[in-house]
């Protein structure tokens, strides 16, 4: 009986193929995904490898391909979390309150370049950069201003900070203490993912070994003291923005995740004590199905590796929760309003891929930091998806799509290929030191650019349907006077604090840093309470650990 069905199907497939080939395909544009995965014209049981129980299973159950919770968006929608930060803590505090008033459910902090690189606002390298791409935070005093009037026991806060993540987390915890919120009630995510900095975003301070130690210190400290905080958000977002393709984003992010797991195991931590608090952060690019496949493959790989390779017993250790942001790199400066459409499609992919939280980019972000108007439209995009489209009514509604399942398999296969190559190079850190990922990304990015320039990939408004005489859109301008104001603030903090206490706290931090077996979070907390600045703490650690410099490749 089954054989007959199969034969009929095969006959049908052959007949379809014969008829398909009588019609010429369109020429010029590629049929492969943005990442270069070849697409068949049709997927069917003929060319899809799928074992339902093995590969998909059930929502909230291993291997979590269909989602991490049994009820997904029927139980609770994703967190709409718009990333914000510019100027000084006062301006950003006002933007936070604006977003909370407009229905946003979580906060997400963007820091400026000097903060990301571990420099105070009055450092020579900070000139011209203070408050430009995010908020400038130099000390606990700025963090107090940033969260003024926002009860930390009631919000969850994400902080996009890596090199000085430990200091910023300590500032946040200190604000919690001042608000009388017990540390165990503080909720949120600190990015902390230094590996992807070496690979892609390039905002590092120290060399990989001490950086990894600091990450493990945070994971260990959070497991004991801040159990609701995600101490690391293992990020593919920046890997994609740096020009990688979807498979590289998937593979390098997961490889980084495994590297953190291994570092924690080396420290002697129990995998089930920390793995449930590891979270992830992915990009949502324009190739709709490829993106959805990427999220599903990511969940499946993480679950399999955590259970089978790292021996995690607690199902919460197997499940990958992630935040998603739409692709900044896909936004165009030409006809910027069209970016609203791109972002909506990307956001839809993230939702269909089962994201736990989402940031939608604003349409003006290829030009400048977003205006309030643009940010509101970006948030509204998520609200339309959540409340008007109906895609939330059924869990993993695309599960079982022949195309999607085969693409999920393909991305998973490519990821395992990369894991092997990284392993052959000695692991993630040695691979970084050999520029392996950096080269792979540069290669993919150049290939994509070449395809665009040959017209094989169309970008509306850029290489087709261009428009002359575009109307300029209003952009956000950062007042250059803010830099001076912030410089005066940090200098005021240093002048007012108890100098002896600050000095003592810094001395202790340096001493503890020199001893590898000491967790640095408590000394960093102590220094924060003494209003030692982030730059001073980083300088102290630079003295002990040195700094990182990459060999540039292109």
């Amino acid at each position, binding site marked *: 009986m089954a054989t007959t069905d199969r034969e009929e199907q095969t006959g049908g497939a052959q007949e379809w193929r014969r008829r398909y080939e009588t019609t010429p395909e369109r020429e010029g544009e590629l049929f492969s995904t943005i990442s270069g995965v070849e697409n068949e014209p049709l997927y069917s049981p003929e060319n899809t490898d799928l074992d339902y129980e093995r590969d998909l299973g059930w929502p909230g159950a291993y291997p979590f391909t269909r989602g991490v919770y049994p009820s997904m968006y029927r139980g609770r929608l994703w967190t709409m979390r718009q990333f914000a930060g510019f100027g000084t803590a006062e301006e950003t505090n006002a933007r936070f309150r604006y977003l909370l008033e407009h229905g946003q459910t979580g906060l997400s902090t963007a820091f400026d*370049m000097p903060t990301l690189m571990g420099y105070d606002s009055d450092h020579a390298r900070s000139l*011209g950069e203070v408050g430009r791409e995010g908020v400038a935070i130099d000390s606990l005093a700025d963090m107090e201003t940033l969260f003024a009037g926002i009860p930390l026991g009631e919000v969850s806060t994400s902080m996009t900070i890596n090199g000085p993540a430990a200091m910023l987390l300590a500032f946040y915890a200190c604000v919690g203490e001042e608000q009388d919120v017990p540390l165990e009630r503080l909720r949120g995510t600190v990015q902390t993912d230094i590996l992807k900095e070496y690979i892609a975003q390039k905002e590092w301070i120290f060399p990989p070994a001490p950086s990894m130690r600091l990450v493990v210190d945070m994971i260990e400290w959070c497991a004991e003291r801040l159990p609701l905080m995600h101490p690391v958000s293992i990020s593919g977002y920046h890997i994609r923005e740096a020009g990688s393709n979807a498979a590289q984003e998937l593979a390098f992010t997961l490889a980084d995740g495994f590297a953190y797991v291994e570092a924690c195991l080396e420290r002697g931590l129990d995998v089930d004590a920390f793995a449930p608090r590891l979270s992830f952060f992915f990009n949502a690019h324009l190739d709709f199905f490829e993106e959805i496949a990427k999220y599903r493959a990511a969940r499946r790989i993480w679950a399999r590796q955590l259970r089978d390779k790292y021996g995690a017993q607690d199902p919460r250790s197997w499940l990958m929760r992630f935040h998603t942001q739409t692709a900044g790199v896909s936004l165009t400066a030409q006809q910027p309003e069209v970016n609203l459409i791109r972002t909506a499609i990307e956001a839809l992919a993230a939702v269909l891929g089962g994201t736990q939280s989402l940031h939608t980019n604003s349409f003006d972000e290829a030009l400048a930091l977003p205006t309030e108007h643009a940010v509101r439209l970006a948030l509204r995009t998520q609200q339309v998806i959540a409340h008007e489209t109906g895609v939330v009514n059924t869990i993993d509604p695309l599960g079982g799509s022949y195309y999607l399942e085969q693409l999920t398999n393909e991305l998973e296969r490519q990821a395992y290929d990369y894991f092997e190559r990284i392993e052959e190079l000695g692991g993630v850190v040695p691979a970084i030191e050999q520029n392996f990922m950096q080269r792979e990304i540069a290669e993919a990015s150049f290939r994509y650019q070449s395809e665009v320039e040959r017209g094989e990939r169309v970008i509306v408004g850029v290489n087709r349907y261009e428009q002359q005489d575009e109307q300029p859109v209003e952009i956000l301008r950062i007042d250059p006077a803010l830099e001076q104001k912030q410089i005066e603030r940090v200098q005021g903090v240093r002048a007012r604090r108890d100098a002896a206490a600050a000095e003592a706290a810094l001395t202790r931090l340096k001493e503890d840093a020199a001893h590898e077996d000491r967790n640095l979070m408590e000394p960093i907390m102590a220094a924060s309470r003494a209003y030692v600045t982030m730059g001073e703490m980083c300088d102290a650690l630079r003295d002990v650990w040195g700094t990182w410099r990459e060999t540039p490749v292109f």
Partner: protein
Amino acid sequence: MAGKIRVVVAKPGLDGHDRGAKIIARALRDAGMEVIYTGLHQTPEQIVETAIQEDADAVGISILSGAHMTLVPRILELLRENGVEDVVVVVGGTIPDDDADELRKLGVAGVFGPGAPTTEIVDFLKGAVAA
């Protein structure tokens, strides 16, 4: 002109967005130019020193940190102070139109925003260096 065009591709400031710089560096190299890529986080002083040491015909500055109105004028000033008058300076990144006009007034030969094709930049540099 005789010999290959020598271009320093430079990343001033603190931002680590090097996708554009690397694509341009490679496109210029593929177009037959001699390309020196400085790597990230360069100070204006370091960039000017590299330009002088490498006897560059052109300097391409890639910047996405919003600090262009501080760092680019500083690079131009340092080039002049060091008596380097004949180097073609071009800038790429997210530069608002008003700022681009201002930079051209200060002596930047070309400003290229997001989406500019690499071929346009190659042709521009060939023309500007030959002139």
